[in-house]
């Protein structure tokens, strides 16, 4: 589980998050992403999550989002990527 407090999943944080996710993936456990503090998500962030999801699927792992706020869910739904992320 990602323990670092993530406030935004956006273009500004994408590279840092990518490294963090890659590290976490190596643990082999169910990937849990706590979205409690996330206040901003953009298309770069959504694409990053889709890539993460794809990578986990490849390893027969899965991603679990917890504490997704309505506002963040709304942002993801606008692009209709919620289904692909298992949030639909």
């Amino acid at each position, binding site marked *: 589980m990602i323990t670092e407090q993530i406030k935004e999943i956006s273009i500004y944080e994408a590279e840092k998050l990518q490294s963090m996710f890659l590290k976490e993936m190596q643990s082999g456990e169910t990937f849990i992403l706590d979205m409690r503090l996330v206040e901003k998500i953009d298309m770069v962030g959504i694409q990053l999550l889709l890539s993460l999801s794809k*990578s986990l699927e490849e390893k027969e792992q899965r991603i679990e989002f917890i504490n997704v706020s309505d506002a963040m869910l709304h942002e993801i739904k606008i692009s209709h990527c919620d289904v692909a992320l298992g949030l639909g």
Partner: protein
Amino acid sequence: MEEEVEIFLEDCEDQLGLMEGALVSIQDSGVDADSIGTIFRAMHTIKGSAGMFGYDNIVKFAHAGENLLDAAREGLIEVNEEMVDLFLQCKDYLEHLIEVEIREEEMESSQKSLGENLVKALISYMPGEKPLEKSEDLGQIKEPSMSEEEILRWHISIRFHKDFFTTGMSIHSIFNFLNKIGKVIINQPILYHIPLLEALNPLHPYIGFEILFEADLPYEEIEEVFEFIIDDVDLMIFEHTDEESLSQLIASRKEDLLSQTLLDAQFYTEIETVDVSEEKTEEIKKSLPEVNKPEELEILENEKTESKTVTKSTGAPKVSSSLRVDATKIDLLINYMSEIVIANSKIITLSEELDNSELDEASSRMRELLEVVREGIMDIRMVQVGDSFAKFRRIVNDTAKKIGKNVEFIITGGETELDKTVVERISDPLVHMLRNSIDHGIEEPSDRIKAGKSSKGRVDLRAYTDSGTIVIEIEDDGKGLDKNRILAKAIENGLISSTATLSDAEIYKLIFEAGLSTAEKVSDISGRGVGMDVVRRNIEDLRGSIDITSALGKGSKITIRLPLTLASIDGFLVQVGHTKYIIPLESIQECIELTQEELEGMKGNEFINLRGDMLPLMDVRVVLNEEKSESARKNIVIVRFGEKIVGLLVDELLGEHQTVIKPLGDAFVNVTGISGGSILGSGEVALIFDIARLIEYKI
């Protein structure tokens, strides 16, 4: 404010300016298709941009205006005077609405009602339309004439160029806007190209979208939704029923396995691909970009089909004649430039001290180049005053109309350039003076006829450059200033003593004193004596001067002189006592030596005979309380401001100096004739003369 929002605001200001200009032009010269087109495009652009940022209220309001303008463009309605007034009110309301939306504030209820009433009024002019009832939702953006059966469905296919994410544009805004102007039935993200996390470049877009969109809108309007990102995406828009375009899309995006995706997503119940020849497919494919390879794009002009399919792309770099730059970036550049100029002055000083010819040559070359760069940077800040002046047309018209006067307003010299900051800061004082001219200068039509004048008054606003300054004149052919009345009022208010002897120019200038108004009637436009002193102060703050001439019964002329820029000047360095001073080069007429003979000939008088004319002299040492000079030589720098000439008595002439103006602290506020400071190469501070103030002080 975020940069994008600032750009949006600037865009809106530009568009509102165009709108107002076109409306005033209709008021002046009658309705013409160009003006209607300009107003329509302005309204449409504001609507489109606002939609991108999710400012729904702006979109709704602008849409109502746009509809009526579209009807006017199509010749379905005739634009009359009332409608022009209505559009002017709409422009003002829109301006306020934009401010409120940007500040994320709640609109006051009175303004809300105004907006609703304006929309009602707009709709009431629509052909065959009844005004909207208050309870109706004004936000329903649908063409009234279209029925349900006629609603069009569009297929929008979008892929992003490699740098799309770094452009700062948000695809979410596009999706939101599509939902405002119509309905997104299906939005199918295309995910095949998204790589595994290890291979992902997070800043590159791999995702794409296939959208089924329902809207009673023509193709052009849908395409315009993508206006701001059109150069950064690969876009195809076509009617849902257009099989040929669908086939082309599928052929061109073969690797996306689109057929199955579109069927799975229920875009289509079946896909019968129209036979697209191998060659044509290849041609289309080549012309469309692979994701992340924007350099391969080409505009498929000849592939635009009758069914309104478009492929927008950017093979060749788009050449734009202008670039919008944040003014603060230019200010920053000017600041750095200033520091470089100061640092180079230091090098020049050192090279002189070291007597090193090579260093001297290099530093001189550097100085020349810096001068070129400095001029270039300063030039970026220069804008034509005409754009700012054009908005005064409406103010003049409105003011004249309000008080029942007939005024012809003539602008000349609009192409004159001035620093943007100066233009912005001079705007309010000019508005104030124009209103005064109309309210108090121009007579009532009946009085004008009695005075043997045309019933229509005339106000001229001119701009031109003169000796490195810009001159702005406001001249009217009204009743002129009554100097006896001004004098009496000034004595009554204690501004001057009853025994004071003043020249005409000095009497007229009294109208710029606080609390002096000679207006017989106080109107809501002017006449309270509040404002003209503020006008003068604003102009003086800009290192400018203001003068007034007048002839009773014939009119008045206000002349404002302003420096072209506030950031730097070409200066001439002189020394008085132990202090160095800079005189703006453009104000210097000549430098002469004051011989011992002339000095003795002066016999204590403060003027000399210069080639037969009397030249008033000002001993800077005395005025600024400098120590007595040990220099045997005395020099006179003859300076001019407007029509006035004075000789400044200084000790030494040190030569030209590129002067970067640094503001002085409050301690210098009351020092006569000093407008700023500059740092010399030696690290010393030189004070910059304010020639206008010095001359005023002397004369």
